[in-house]
């Protein structure tokens, strides 16, 4: 179980290509389930730049990342 925060499309767009820390970028992704775009707890906690201070206020929710492909059926 992972903790993630949901993003609106505009929030997602504002983070794409932006640094969490040097040599480390945000990677918003579609959740694949009922949530829209998400970023991870690790990105939120590690973010050091003032422009992105707002993500510290996002609500974290539990998330089960999909296993794809999985097991012996990996393709």
């Amino acid at each position, binding site marked *: 179980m*992972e903790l*993630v925060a949901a993003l609106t499309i505009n929030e997602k767009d504002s983070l794409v290509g932006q640094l*969490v*820390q*040097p*040599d*480390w*970028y*945000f*990677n*918003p*992704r579609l959740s694949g389930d009922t949530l829209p775009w*998400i*970023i*991870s*707890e*690790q*990105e939120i906690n*590690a973010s050091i730049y003032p422009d992105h201070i707002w993500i510290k206020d996002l609500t974290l929710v539990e*998330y089960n*990342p999909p*296993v*794809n*492909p*999985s*097991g*012996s059926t*990996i*393709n």
Partner: protein
Amino acid sequence: MRKNIDKRTWGVLGKMKTYYSPQKQVEGKSKTPLNANAFDSWDVKRSRFKRIDGYENKVPPNVQQMDGINESSSSPIPVSPTPTPSFTPTSTSTPTPSITPSSTPIIDCYWDTNNDNWENDSTLWNDCVNVPTPTPSPTNTMTPTNTMTPTNTNTSTPTPTPSITPSTSFVSGTTEAETYLAAVLAGGGTGLTSTISGATITMFRDIMANNLWDKLDIFYPMLGGNSGGMKVNGRNPGTNDLTFNGGWTFSNSGATGNGTNAYAETGYADTNTLLNDYHQAIYSFVRNSNGNIDCGVGSASANTRSAMYVNELTTFGASAHRANSGYISSTYTANTGAGLYVVDRPLSNSEKSFTNGSFSTSAATASTSRTSNTYVFGARRIDNQVTEAYNNRGYCWYSIGKSLSDSQQSTLSSIINTFQTTLNRNTY
């Protein structure tokens, strides 16, 4: 130049020649041998000859300058032995200084009455009296210019900042390791103790010493405890350094993905690899189960896949430039998902996999093609630079390069695991 040599006048002792002053030859006066007294030394004989133009005071005589007239337009007369030492620098740590003979060689020359010219006879070196054999002079021994100061090999220096710039290579791998460590520090990496620095230098040296350096196109030892330190490509810092994306956790053990959106981008395209001479390796320090992909690249359009996964505690799947479907897989009863995993393609019809340096499995699968997509780990890269199948394992080594023989697999595994053991992040 040596014609009619038998017409020359010889001295009374042995093969001593008779030497005449050219001035007296020109003036047509009687010939007075310079070495009339056969017991005189060679130096004494030479001292009796005095050039009227003072030429001998300008430069030491040599064959071309001997008559001061037209020899400059002629070919040099070879003089043997030529006392010009050559300096061939060695590639080892002990430079070999060259030696300059202490004395200027005396060139055996005489006035040839048949040619009215100075002649040289290199065959008479050993016939002359007092002609010294060029010998090394201690006073002229060159000071080695490439003497190296011993480097900080696994000692107490906490900061591995390179302290020297060698003019030639000495212990292979040391310079490369120090360059790498400096790049880790420059990138913001921390915690590089003397133990870590020493282990890194040892690892680089061992890779070099075992001829594995050229087998590694890119590799990441993953030091520094953060993204800035772990990004550095050990093979060529500053080129194909990693960029991390998504949810990573960094520590001295390495980088751990979250299985949700974390991956590390190498920027190294599959087309940079060789189709049938290839390996990809990853060292995971985390024992866990995950059904996703640890590393690799694939392409539906190019119908190729080069990737690895270690999942469900029992299966290790691998592919190397094969069709974009399936893997060769090994089943273990006690696979922990941790350790060094390698997929290798040595031939167009062979794929092999190795775990912790030991052979796992192989298959006679044909190679297909390569893709322009770039390699990632923590997930896999597919067409249109889409990243998918995020993994949640922790990594402390990643490399891509050329095929390794079974023995090279074992050697590289030992080198990497020794490095990881010193850093307390080994799993076997």
